[in-house]
C-alpha cells in the first residue's frame, strides 16, 4: 500500500514539475515575445515621434519664414508711410514745445521725446 502511495506521489510530483516547467517555458516565451513586441512598438513610436517632431519643426520653420518675410514687408511699407507723413514736418519744434511743457507742468515727456527723436532719423534720412 505504501509502495503504491509512493508511486502515486512520485508521479504527481513529476507531473507537477513538468507542468511547472512547461508553464515557466511558456512564460519565458511570452515574456520574450512581449519584450520583442514592446521594443518594436517603442522603436516605431520613437521613429514616428521623430518624424512628427521633424515635420512640425520643418513646418514651423516654413511658417516662421512666411511670417518673417510678411512682417518685414509690412515694416518696409510702414517705414515708407512714416517718411511720407513726416515730409515737411518740423519735429524739432515739437520737441522744444514738449520740453517747455515738461518744465512748466512737470509732465514726464522723456519717452515721447525719445520716440520723436527716433522719428527724426526717418525724416532726416528721407531728405538725403
Amino acid at each position, binding site marked *: 500500500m505504501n509502495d503504491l502511495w509512493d508511486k502515486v506521489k512520485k508521479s504527481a510530483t513529476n507531473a507537477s514539475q513538468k507542468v511547472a516547467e512547461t508553464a515557466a517555458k511558456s512564460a519565458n516565451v511570452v515574456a520574450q515575445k512581449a519584450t520583442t513586441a514592446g521594443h518594436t512598438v517603442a522603436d516605431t513610436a520613437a521613429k514616428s515621434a521623430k518624424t512628427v517632431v521633424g515635420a*512640425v519643426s520643418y*513646418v*514651423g520653420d516654413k*511658417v*516662421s519664414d*512666411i*511670417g*518673417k518675410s*510678411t*512682417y*518685414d*514687408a*509690412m*515694416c*518696409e*511699407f*510702414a*517705414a*515708407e*508711410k*512714416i*517718411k*511720407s*507723413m*513726416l515730409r515737411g*514736418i*518740423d*519735429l524739432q*519744434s*515739437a520737441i522744444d*514745445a*514738449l520740453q517747455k*511743457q515738461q518744465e512748466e*507742468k512737470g*509732465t*514726464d*515727456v522723456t*519717452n*515721447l521725446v*525719445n*520716440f*520723436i527723436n*527716433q*522719428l527724426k*532719423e*526717418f525724416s532726416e*534720412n*528721407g531728405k*538725403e
Partner: protein
Amino acid sequence: MAKSESIRKVQTIIANAPLAEIRDTAKTINEFIPPPVNLVINIIILIIDLLSKLQPVASSAVGKAADITSDLEKTDQEKARELFDAMFEIAMADGMITDEEKEFLRPRAIAAGIEEDEFELMIINKVNRK
C-alpha cells in the same frame, strides 16, 4: 536710409517703445500745446497708431510655434487678405493715400480676392470717413 535699415528701425521701435504710454502722454500734453505744433503732435499720434497696429503682427511673427495649426488651416487667399488688410490700414493711417501706395496695394488686393471696384470703394469709404 537703406531699405533693410528702415525695416530694422521700425521693428526696433515696435519691439521696444512703450507705444500705449507714449500715446497717452502725447494726448494729454497736446491739450496745452499751441498751434501749429499741436498738429505735429497729432501726426505723431497717427504714427503711434500705425505702429501699434503692427505690434500684434510682430508677436505673431516671433511666436509662430503656437500659430502653426491655425496658419496651416488658412488658405493662401486668406493669408493674402490678412496681409492686404494690415497694409491697407497702414496706408490709410493719415487718411490719405498716394498714387504710389494705391498702385502698391492694387495687386495685393487682387491676390486677396478683392475686385477692382471693391478696392476703389474701400479707399473712397476710408478717405471719406477720415
